[in-house]
């Protein structure tokens, strides 16, 4: 049995069926069907404005904050419809964390940045527990050695790459199941990007990761599955190795070879 079939046997963590999203009159996503397997990195690629970030924001219902945004269809997380009335959006977002394009640490201390999630979700029994969560989150995001002496300094004083890793630490501190990443490296230099990519490869062992990226190389390096979005539709979805070496659709080929996009 080869690797692909094993992955197909595993129940997907996230299942999207027939998802349509509208911003006012604009039809941003049309009939999206997508299965995201657990403990893998799924890359969403495609030209700007194709709807990949919109889809990402559907998974933790961040689009709820945009008044004009409307969504139909069904997205399930572990078999539960995340848009059903019984789902508490606060708990959903604790389960599905998000890292944004521009690193956005809170203008508070590094410690408070990481401790914020556990605090509002009541995850730490006492101060010692909280210290432990902050320590392990920073450790896992590879930031501990760089910041252990200045946990009380502002998170905004760190470098861009460190800020992004702080945001990742903040996200994993609430121990989510899924981490959504919206172009996490687009504002970083190559070295900081390499560090974050390494980190993502590590995090895959524990978390299901969905990453939106504009870098073909990054998608090829990091992900096991790739979905190619074009004008609000998924034109092609499959194993990353398959898509990058042998795309079935002409448009995908054109895009990944850099003919447009």
């Amino acid at each position, binding site marked *: 049995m080869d690797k692909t079939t094993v992955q197909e046997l595993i129940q997907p963590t996230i299942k999207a069926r027939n998802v349509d999203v509208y911003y006012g009159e604009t039809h941003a996503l049309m009939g999206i069907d997508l299965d995201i397997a657990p403990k893998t990195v799924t890359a969403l690629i495609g030209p700007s404005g194709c709807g990949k970030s919109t889809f990402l924001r559907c998974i933790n219902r961040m689009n709820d904050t945009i008044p004009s945004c409307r969504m139909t269809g069904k997205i399930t997380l572990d078999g539960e419809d995340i848009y059903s009335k019984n789902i508490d959006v*606060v708990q959903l977002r604790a389960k599905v964390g*998000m890292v*944004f394009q521009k690193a956005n640490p809170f203008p508070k201390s590094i410690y408070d940045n990481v401790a914020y999630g556990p605090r509002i979700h009541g995850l730490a029994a006492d101060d010692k527990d909280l210290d432990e969560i902050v320590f392990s989150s920073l450790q896992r995001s590879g930031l501990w050695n760089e910041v252990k002496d200045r946990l009380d300094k502002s998170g905004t004083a760190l470098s861009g790459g460190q800020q992004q890793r702080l*945001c990742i630490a*903040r*996200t994993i501190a*609430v121990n989510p199941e899924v981490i959504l990443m919206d172009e996490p490296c687009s504002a970083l230099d190559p070295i900081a990007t390499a560090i974050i990519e390494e980190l993502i490869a590590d995090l895959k062992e524990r978390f299901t990761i969905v990453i939106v990226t504009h870098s073909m190389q990054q998608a090829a390096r990091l992900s096991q599955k790739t979905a190619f979005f074009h004008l609000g539709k998924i034109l092609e979805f499959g194993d990353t190795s398959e898509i990058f070496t042998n795309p079935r659709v002409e448009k995908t080929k054109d895009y990944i070879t850099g003919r447009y996009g």
Partner: protein
Amino acid sequence: MTDLKQNTASLKSQARLKKRYRKERLFKAIGLSGLLSGLLALTIMMISILSTGLSGFSETRIKFDIYMDPEIIGSTDGYDETEYRDHIAQINHSTLIRNSLKIKFSDVKGRRDVFNLQKLVSSGSREEVRRLLIEDKNLIGKTIAMDLLASSNVDMYVKGQISRDVNQSERKISDRQLAWLDILESEGRILKGFNWKFFSTGDSREPELAGILGAAMGSFLTLLVTLLIAFPIGVASALYLEEFAPHNKWTDLIEININNLAAVPSIIFGLLGLAIFLNVFNMPRSAPLVGGLTLALMTLPTIIISSRAAIRAVPPSIRDAAIGMGASNLQAQFHHVLPLSMPGIMTGTIIGMAQALGETAPLLMIGMVAFIVDVPQGVLDAATALPVQIFLWADSPERGFMEKTSAAIIVLLVFLIMMNGLAIWVRHKFEKRW
């Protein structure tokens, strides 16, 4: 051919460049002259206020030997503390002073002259004698050298604001009084000192006795009420409108109206306060509570507008971060947006409060314009406010009130500068970068 074309082009462009520079210089010159004329006006204003007002902070005293005549004071044998105090409060201090003055100027005879002689010292000096006697009963029967407060007219003369060159009928001090003053002056009995009373007493009909503590206290209590009402309501409204309210025609209408309210003449708010707080709710007239409520209505638009601007300036990425972490909208606002916008909100609030501090018109409508001697102790006591006090003194015919008016303006300006300075400090101190 091409060379020539290029040359003319460069000549033209040079001319155009020159013209552009000229325009820029002209604009700079106009801007600078505007700024300078503003500064000049400000300087003239400050000089005029300071030159009339600074003398209001000093007072004139005349040294007299006061004989604590036991015959006038009467017997205090066997009185306990309170009985003694009550007795001293009732005796004729005026006669004590008059007799002592008559001892000094023994040639003065006749009711009218004695009356004029006593006019040299302030009616407030009776109070000074009384206080001294209450403090120490052993002074009875002794002659005490006291620095009695001079009357306002003497004060004005000593400060050079009444000239002895004009005709007697046209000045407030008679030739006779001037002669006495000359004698006192030559004996070194006329003293000048800092007018502490000005900062420790309330209003008075006598300029030399008038102070601004009552008005300052009234202003403080009024602003306290204003702040307590306007700040929470203003910030909450701003937060609701900016972050929670749906954006539709109704909220647009509310927004337009808030912006319009900020430009409504303040006296309209006074009428509103009169109609609602006094006539409908029957709250006490002239009270800082009502003044504060009325000024809160006036300040609310300012606070709401500046708070909304400050909240809007918080980058959306911070909200996204908090909401992405699973914070509720309210948590995102209170944990992140409000703390970040607080410097802007506080700056707007302090500016609004400074505006309220200088406001007179609405307070006139709700009766905070009365002559009130007592320093208010609470928000329900009758009170007046600093700008109203200035207005009242400016309206008084006595010459002595002229310098008091300017002195009160100086105090008001100092408060305003302090509040604006506080606003700048708050902005710099708490501003966070992200």
